[in-house]
C-alpha cells in the first residue's frame, strides 16, 4: 500500500517535471530558431543574405530537430523542413522576393508550433 502510494506520487512528480521541462524546452528551441529566422529575414530583405547564411540556418535547424523529434510529431518537423529547404533554394538562386515569402511562412510556423502543445482548452478538445 505505502509502496503503491510512493510509486504513484513519484510518477505524478516525474510527469509534472517532464511536462514543465518540455514546455520550456520547446518554447526556448522554437524561440531561438524564430530569432534566427528574423535575422535571416532582415538580410534577405536587404538582399545581403548569401549561401553561407542559408546554410547556417539550415545547420541550426538540423541540430535542433534531432532532439525535437523526441517531443513533437515528426510531421510538424517536416513542415519546417519543407519551407526551410524552399527558402534556402531561393536564397541560393538569389530570388529574394520568393525567399522572403517562404521565411515569412517559417516564422509563422515556428511562432505557432509550440502553442499547439501547450495546455490550453482548444488543444485538449
Amino acid at each position, binding site marked *: *500500500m505505502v509502496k*503503491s*502510494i510512493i*510509486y*504513484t506520487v513519484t*510518477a*505524478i512528480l516525474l*510527469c509534472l517535471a*517532464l*511536462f514543465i521541462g*518540455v*514546455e520550456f524546452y520547446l518554447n526556448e528551441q522554437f524561440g531561438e530558431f524564430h530569432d534566427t529566422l528574423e535575422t535571416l529575414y532582415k538580410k534577405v530583405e536587404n538582399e545581403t543574405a548569401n549561401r553561407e547564411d542559408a546554410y547556417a540556418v539550415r545547420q541550426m535547424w538540423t541540430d535542433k530537430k534531432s532532439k525535437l*523529434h*523526441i*517531443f*513533437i*510529431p*515528426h*510531421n510538424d518537423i517536416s513542415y519546417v523542413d519543407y519551407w526551410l529547404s524552399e527558402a534556402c533554394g531561393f536564397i541560393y538562386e538569389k530570388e529574394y522576393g520568393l525567399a522572403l515569402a517562404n521565411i515569412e511562412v517559417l516564422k509563422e510556423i515556428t511562432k505557432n508550433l509550440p502553442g499547439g*502543445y*501547450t*495546455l490550453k482548452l482548444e*488543444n*485538449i478538445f
Partner: protein
Amino acid sequence: MALIFIRTAIIFLTLLFIMRLMGKSQIGEMQPFEFVITLLIAELACIPMADSSIPLLYGVIAIVAIFILHQIVWLLDLWFKPVKTAVCGKPSLVINKNGVDEYQLKTNNLDVSDLIESMRAAGYFSLDDVYYGLYESNGSFSALENPDRKSSSLPVLLIDGGKADKKNLEICGITREELQAFLSAQDTQLKQVLVMTVSGDGRVYLQKRGEKYRILEMELKNKW
C-alpha cells in the same frame, strides 16, 4: 506532454462512464475500470509503435497516465466507499425468493435469456435451482443454491418478456394456441408473462410481471 496526459485522462473517464452505463453485460469478470484500462493500454501501446510520425514518448506518457489513474481509482476505492460504488458499481440481486427481478435486469441492460445463459454457465439449468442469484460488480454470476433442485431435463425458454419464442415452441411441440390455452387456464395473458420455461418432463416455471413465480405442470407431446 501535459496535453497527452489530460487527453488520456478524459478518454479514460469517458470510457469508464460509458462502461458503467452499459451495465454488467459488457464487462465480463473485470471491474469496469480494469476493463477500460485493458481497452486503452493495447491501443496506446500500438499507435506510437505502428505510426513512426508519432514520438514514442507520447505512448509512454499516455501509458504512465493510465497507471496513475489506475492507482488513484484503486486508492479511492479503498478509502471511500461511495467512490467504489460509483466507479465499480454494486452487485445486483436478479433472482430473489419471488423469482426474477425484472427491474434489476433492466438496470443492468440484461434480459431473461442473458440471465438463463449466466445460470447455465454457473451450472444451474432451471430458474428455481437457486434461491438467490446476483450479478457481481465485475459482471460474474453468483447464486445461493436451492438444496431441493428438481430439474431433471433441460428447461426451454418459451416466453421472454411477454414474447413467445416461436423456435422453442416448435422444439417443444407446443402450438401457439396450446400456449394461449395454458396461459388462459392460469388466468394470464402473454404480455403479462415475464418468463415461462418448460422442462422435458412438463415442469413449467411461470412468472407474471410483478408477481411471485409458480411451478406448474404441462402436458407435452414431445419429451426430452
